């Protein structure tokens, strides 16, 4: 830093904190996926296929998650159905 820098605007955006926040979110998300069994994406696909036969749904509106609590696994299925016309 030279003498000229003192005349410049000293306010700097703390981009490091943005980086940390983004990393914490993506890393937590990816760790969650890491513990899921391999069959989960295909399971999700087949569930979507079956439901699509009867109802028009958006792929984004289907969430499949597997939770492990002690010695019990919970398969959670969350589907948002479209509003009735």
């Amino acid at each position, binding site marked *: *830093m030279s003498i000229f820098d003192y005349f410049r605007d000293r306010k*700097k955006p703390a981009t490091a904190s943005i980086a*940390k926040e983004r990393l914490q979110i993506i890393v937590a998300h990816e*760790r969650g996926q890491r513990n899921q069994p391999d069959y989960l994406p295909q399971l999700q696909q087949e569930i979507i296929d079956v439901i699509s036969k009867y109802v028009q749904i958006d792929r984004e509106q289907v969430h499949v998650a597997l939770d492990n609590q002690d010695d019990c696994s919970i398969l959670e299925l969350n589907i948002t159905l479209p509003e009735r016309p």
Partner: protein
Amino acid sequence: MAKIIVVTSGKGGVGKTTTSAAIGTGLALRGYKTVIVDFDVGLRNLDLIMGCERRVVYDFVNVINGDSNLNQTLIKDKRSDNLFILPASQTRDKDALTPEGVERVLNELKETFDYIVCDSPAGIEKGAHLAMYFADEAVVVTNPEVSSVRDSDRMLGLLASKSKHAEAGEKIKEHLLLTRYNPERVENGEMLSVSDVEDILSIPLLGVIPESQAVLKASNQGVPVIMDDKSDAGQAYADAVERLLGKDMPHRFLELQKKGLLQRLFGGR
């Protein structure tokens, strides 16, 4: 009992080979018989960093295929009697490494060496997988930068699932080595700090290597940077090796060096 240490990162260009060379040399200089194994088949560079590129006759794949034995293949470092290099093959492709072959060679190395340092290639393909599979400890090299931190976390996931120890229900000892650290940019809020990266990856910190001109100077000459004991990076690596051996050392080079009045005025470096 020999210890296998893998130096890994996921992302390329963060300093795996520099680190493998420095840690391997540091262990050898402290009296441990050490071999550094280059797993980057097709893109070998450990020989250049160690300055033995013109002495490569046989390579890792030759040993696996039985074309040569370890005595013919290992290159003895000219600076330390305790240090040997097992170069990767430059011509074969990655499929030349087989799990059985790698395990056989590592078992043979275990008979004579105290430490086996495995220099992993970038990525998560076969070479990287085999470099970590047999490891007892892992040094995860990370730059304070988003893509490197994310890739390191991915490697930690693989270490916890796709390694021999993990499959046996045990845990590999993990170490975080933060490289290319720039305290000035951290102070300005432009770079993730040590504690930021520790928070995200949550593994024990082995060392912080400052961004340093000494690293390029050392690689230009084919000398491991740890040999440059006057440089900040060399000293930081030396501290990291001591910690790897179980010593408790304070972390250095984390703070911005205070500049003198003249440097402040004229912006000298």
